[in-house]
């Protein structure tokens, strides 16, 4: 088979920390960057006599994600123990789901340069994370263990080996991340290690005499924690498989060598062997006797399905059609509530009588401008989700009315920001706040002209700079005029008058 016919075949296993407050099987806080062994209890420490109890919210988030990935939720899911000895795994077994997971047979549509590819998903399941094994500080000849992370709920998504390039693998990872963040299932904060990737890579080397496809050995790369390393590790492996196969086409096959486990050395940008097929773990799976099976109530599952927001894939299409730039789309799709609020705001503005003539593009731009600047700013300041902001009087209808006031020149944009903050704080309408604060913009050209004259008179050097070619000085003069007006002058009119007076 020629080198060109070797088809990279990549599957990705992704682990993500669920956005729960507590661990999977105990009531310890899920916490990051805390004093070692300060978020632990007898259960997650695996002390003698302890027992696990399932976190209801983790189940809910897992089902949410599984449904969004188009998975079937089976009638029964059960827990199993996966045994191996390691100092960061206190019980020396991990509670996971082996043969009856919480979700099966889904897919994820991924945008690639070559078009949209549908990547199949074999299964979605829950398990608990292990702790952290670290080398001693100061290079001592020992290792240390911090068990804070032990027991953190992990959602594992296993794809079919449907990806055929390193770029596709990366795109899949990024799309999966966006979906998880969007749904509030996981924060997927890469710095905190909330998302980890394990690509399985091999090359298809044609078909055998029985008509079945043949492959090079499957290499599983453990514990990658950035998209960059996923892409690079996959690219490296594809090249390495090619080399190995060309050197030994008869021997370098899946039948002969099976599956091997490899690590990625980021500094040297290469993989290295961890375990060959012979050294593969015998995990001795058996059903977890301390936990009872999950029998998801059908009505409850359908309730979660009905409560799923419009998915990012669909939204992205609509936003692209509305002409939104990619960066804006990505920002709006950070969270399902934000995207929905934008959508609702567009409708709300459209309903305003004064907005009758506005074209669609203008509408959508204005809406995302306000959502991503003002609304998001308030959310960040308060560190709350948008659903909670509604308790503080946030409503798209009210914001739409404020927007109309700005767009029709009643108040300027900066004032608009202030008014929005006051609306959230007091619950009053935009019109009331403008009235009470006497915030209406000064649009009287005569009054503004007087202020412009004053600004010119008070800033001779700035005027000189402007006339000397420094265009930016105009902004300074606009600022001075605005200040003198108490922020109420219409900046457009100020600008017009200044330009006229300065002759340029």
């Amino acid at each position, binding site marked *: 088979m020629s080198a060109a016919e070797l088809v990279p075949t990549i599957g990705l296993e992704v682990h993500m920390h669920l956005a729960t407050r507590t661990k999977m099987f105990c009531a310890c806080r899920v916490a990051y960057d805390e004093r070692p062994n300060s978020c632990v209890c*007898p259960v997650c*420490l*695996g*002390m*003698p*006599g*302890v*027992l*696990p*109890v*399932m976190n209801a919210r983790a189940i809910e988030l897992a089902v949410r994600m599984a449904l969004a990935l188009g998975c079937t939720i089976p009638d029964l899911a059960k827990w199993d*123990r996966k*045994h191996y*000895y390691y*100092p960061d795994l*206190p*019980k*020396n*077994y991990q509670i996971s789901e082996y043969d009856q997971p919480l979700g099966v047979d889904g897919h994820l549509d991924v945008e690639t340069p070559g078009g949209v590819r549908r990547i199949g998903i074999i299964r979605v399941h829950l398990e608990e994370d292990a702790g952290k094994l670290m080398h001693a500080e100061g290079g001592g000849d020992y290792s240390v*263990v911090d*068990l804070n992370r032990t027991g953190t709920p992990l959602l594992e998504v296993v794809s079919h080996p449907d990806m055929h390039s390193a770029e596709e693998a990366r795109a899949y990872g990024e799309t999966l991340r966006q979906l998880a963040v969007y749904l509030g299932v996981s924060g997927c904060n890469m710095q905190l290690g909330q998302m980890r990737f394990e690509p399985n890579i091999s090359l298809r080397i044609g078909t055998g005499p029985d008509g079945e496809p043949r492959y090079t050995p499957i290499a599983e790369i453990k514990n990658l924690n950035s998209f960059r390393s996923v892409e690079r590790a996959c690219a490296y492996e594809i090249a390495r498989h090619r080399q190995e196969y060309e050197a030994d086409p008869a021997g370098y096959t899946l039948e002969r060598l099976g599956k091997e486990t490899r690590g990625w050395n980021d500094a040297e940008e290469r993989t290295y062997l961890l375990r060959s097929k012979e050294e593969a773990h*015998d995990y*001795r*799976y*058996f059903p977890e*006797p*301390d*936990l*009872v099976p999950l029998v998801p109530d059908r009505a409850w599952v359908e309730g979660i399905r009905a409560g799923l927001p419009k998915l990012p894939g669909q939204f992205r299409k609509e936003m692209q059609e509305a002409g939104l730039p990619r960066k804006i789309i990505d920002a709006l799709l950070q969270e399902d509530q934000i995207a929905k609020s934008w959508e609702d705001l567009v409708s709300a503005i459209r309903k305003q009588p004064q907005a009758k003539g506005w074209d669609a593009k203008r509408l959508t731009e204005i809406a995302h401008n306000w959502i991503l600047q003002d609304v998001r700013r308030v959310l960040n300041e308060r560190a709350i989700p948008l659903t909670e902001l509604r308790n503080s009087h946030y409503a798209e209808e009210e914001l739409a009315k404020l927007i109309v006031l700005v767009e029709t020149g009643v108040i300027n944009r900066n004032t608009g920001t202030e008014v929005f903050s006051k609306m959230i704080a007091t619950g009053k309408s935009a019109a009331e706040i403008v009235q009470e604060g006497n915030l209406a913009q000064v649009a009287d050209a005569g009054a503004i002209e007087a202020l412009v004259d004053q600004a010119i008179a008070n800033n001779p050097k700035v005027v000189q700079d402007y006339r000397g070619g420094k265009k930016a000085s105009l902004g300074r003069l606009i600022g001075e005029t605005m200040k003198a007006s108490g922020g109420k002058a219409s900046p457009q009119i100020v600008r017009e008058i200044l330009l006229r007076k300065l002759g340029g």
Partner: protein
Amino acid sequence: MSPTESTARQVRDAIARREASAAEVTEACLAAVDRLDPQVHAFLSVDHAGARRRAAEIDRRLAAGEPAGLLAGLPVAIKDNLCTADGQATTCASRILEGWRAPYNAHVVDRLLAEGAVIVGKTNLDEFAMGSSTENSAYGTTRNPWALDRVPGGSSGGSAAAVAARMVPAALGSDTGGSIRQPAALCGVVGVKPTYGRVSRYGLVAFASSLDQIGPIARTVGDAALLLQAAAGHDARDSTCVSQADQPLPDYLAALEEPVEGLRIGVPRQFFAEGLDPEVEAAVREALAVYERLGAKLTDVDLPHATDYAIATYYIVATSEASSNLARYDGVHYGHRSRDHADMIDMYMRSRAEGFGDEVKRRVMLGTYALSAGYYDAYYKKALQVRRLIRRDFEEAFRKVDCLMGPTSPTPAFRIGERAADPLAMYLSDIYTVSCNLAAIAGLSVPCGFTGAGLPVGLQILTDVFTEDRLLRIARMYEREVDWVSRAPALVAGGGGGAA
């Protein structure tokens, strides 16, 4: 009322009526422990100071008219595989947990303390509850108070011996394949294994998670009922514990004296086959005759899978779960760590080799083998299938009868060392008891006589799931007709524990 001769209920009532103080009752028991335990070795640790403090607190509450609980002032002993955060170690009779102090109480310990019990100490057991004689303890074997050269049974031998020797009126044990019932039979006391899920396992150091249950050991059925009442009930920390809604906790004492009218007793032919000691059989049949005189109807029943197949099933299921539950003892986070080791793996291998006794090692390796790649279907899966057959045997039987009766143990207490060299012979001590755990049903052993040599014999009674109230009533019917409880080991009166 004498704290070392009266029943637990009599002791409890006397304290409640302020006829005796908790302090003096506790003193009496501590004195009995100090006098007798050097010969019996039922206790691994005795908490003199803690017990006195607790007793004083109970007395204070009673004096102030405050509620002091169902067990107010009752001294109890706790098997040392139940976690206690009172400063006493929880060792499971193993070197690997030597000196380990639990930072939390087992649920049942919390329950007993909430009901005013006074914990006197932790009792000896076979290491990690693996055994039928308490000879597998790393801290010396307990002796049967009726004959000090004989075993008390196991694995709850310490608790059974402490009660039989009248050091404490009541104790908690655990039962995975008979570990409460068999020592109760060998020591001439009452031992109850509740339905799986009736009592929370939180804080019971796990041996076989799907089989373990905690239960009371006491001298009378009423005392066992009292302790069960205090310990049982739902606990949110144990997912396998039944909810109050699904199985409300009855009042076990309320109807205890009511006989069961028209009682139908099933007598499994498998429990009277080869290997049963003739004196044990005679005592058990005499007990069955008592039931007949009371109007009960005896029927032969068939439990085709309940003996040999049950032992085989048990020694796959229990060892598989044990190999997993004991994987955590590795010297990393707690427990014994070997001193000289080359690397991480060596540390694991040596720590566990040094910390575990032979029986534990055997069972862990057996379980690991049964679960390992290529053997899972032939052993573990097969065993779970036979487990369902065993369960069906009981379901079938309970359609026709209210309870099943037979001997608890095929023999009376055997000599120390007699079976130690033959693990398989030891395993067969549990031949009548393991099926009950596998089927998750309720069972107890009640004293039904003595052999010619003065060794106790126990009658085992089994009932369907969550019928402990009926089980206790059935046992009480018999107990009312006899008086085995008045007979005490010679040891207690100050005589020797005479070999026979």
